[in-house]
């Protein structure tokens, strides 16, 4: 099947929430190709932070895109984001399951080195360096980014998901709960613990 990206070129505004509390959200995409373009980099970095592997992150994002187009292309554009992250979460969980089995079957095989730190050193600073800020602020920002990356890695998988979906992706508590497959109360708990932990870990770097 070849997906026609213009097929879903429809309304950019959509109504979300309960009938009594309807709010209009302006989406930043109107067709599936724009949506994937809009979300792919964040999804890649989320996967990278969760799996500590650039290669696995690429595989996971591609599988997620493939499945979204295959199964949910005809859904409303407002539903794509929660669906995408739901698939992504499921793929990351599968990755951890496969890894656990691999570790049991081949215990002598060493886990590959954490590629994320290299990625950070080589690429984030390059990204930061494209701005016109002075070198001192660039270095401080690069350090903060590195510490933030390390801080996120110290969270549990559920806390990472709650933090990244709520703080980064801006999903509502309800959508985050749907993505994570848990209750809204659980999302709030994970999110507040994640923020608390990050604040404790990053306090020194974020109070300069």
């Amino acid at each position, binding site marked *: 099947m070849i997906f026609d990206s213009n097929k879903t070129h429809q309304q950019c505004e959509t109504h979300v929430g309960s009938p009594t509390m309807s709010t209009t959200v302006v989406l930043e995409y109107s067709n599936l190709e724009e949506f*994937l373009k809009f979300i792919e980099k*964040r999804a890649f970095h989320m996967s990278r932070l969760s799996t500590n592997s650039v290669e696995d992150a690429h595989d996971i994002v591609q599988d997620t895109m493939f499945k979204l187009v295959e199964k949910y292309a005809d859904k409303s554009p407002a539903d794509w984001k929660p669906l995408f992250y739901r698939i992504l979460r499921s793929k990351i969980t599968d990755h951890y399951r496969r890894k656990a089995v691999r570790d049991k079957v081949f215990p002598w095989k060493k886990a590959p080195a954490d590629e994320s730190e290299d990625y950070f050193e080589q690429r984030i600073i390059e990204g*930061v360096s494209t701005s016109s800020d002075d070198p001192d602020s660039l270095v401080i920002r690069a350090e*903060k*980014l590195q510490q933030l990356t390390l801080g996120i890695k110290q969270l549990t998988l559920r806390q990472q998901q709650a933090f990244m979906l*709520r703080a980064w992706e801006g999903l509502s508590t309800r959508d985050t709960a749907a993505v994570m497959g848990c209750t809204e109360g659980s999302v709030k708990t994970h999110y507040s613990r994640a923020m608390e932990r990050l604040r404790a870990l990053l306090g020194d770097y974020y*109070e300069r």
Partner: protein
Amino acid sequence: MNDKTDQEIYKDDLDTMVRGTQSTDSFRLASARQNALRQTDRRPSPMPWLVAAACCCLLAFVFIDPTTDSALENSTTSESPFATVILEEPEVFDNIDFYYWLDVYDTEVIASSD
């Protein structure tokens, strides 16, 4: 710092991380997106490998067949009438020499009659 401020600061930094995505990764993501939209999976289906592995296992089972010999051995020992008698009547143990002699005697008689 309250939660909202923290959240905004972290979000800004994470967005910086996204802007810092290297061009090779951007290229791979664009390629993955196009593959997904065209529904062309870059990886071959694992089904042929699974079928081949199943065939190899079946062949190995047929040729090696580790159960046959032991099963035969088990059946001859466990289904021997003599063993059954011993299990059912422990007093047979008392006359085991006699039965052994009888068995040898019968064999010799049969051999000589042939």
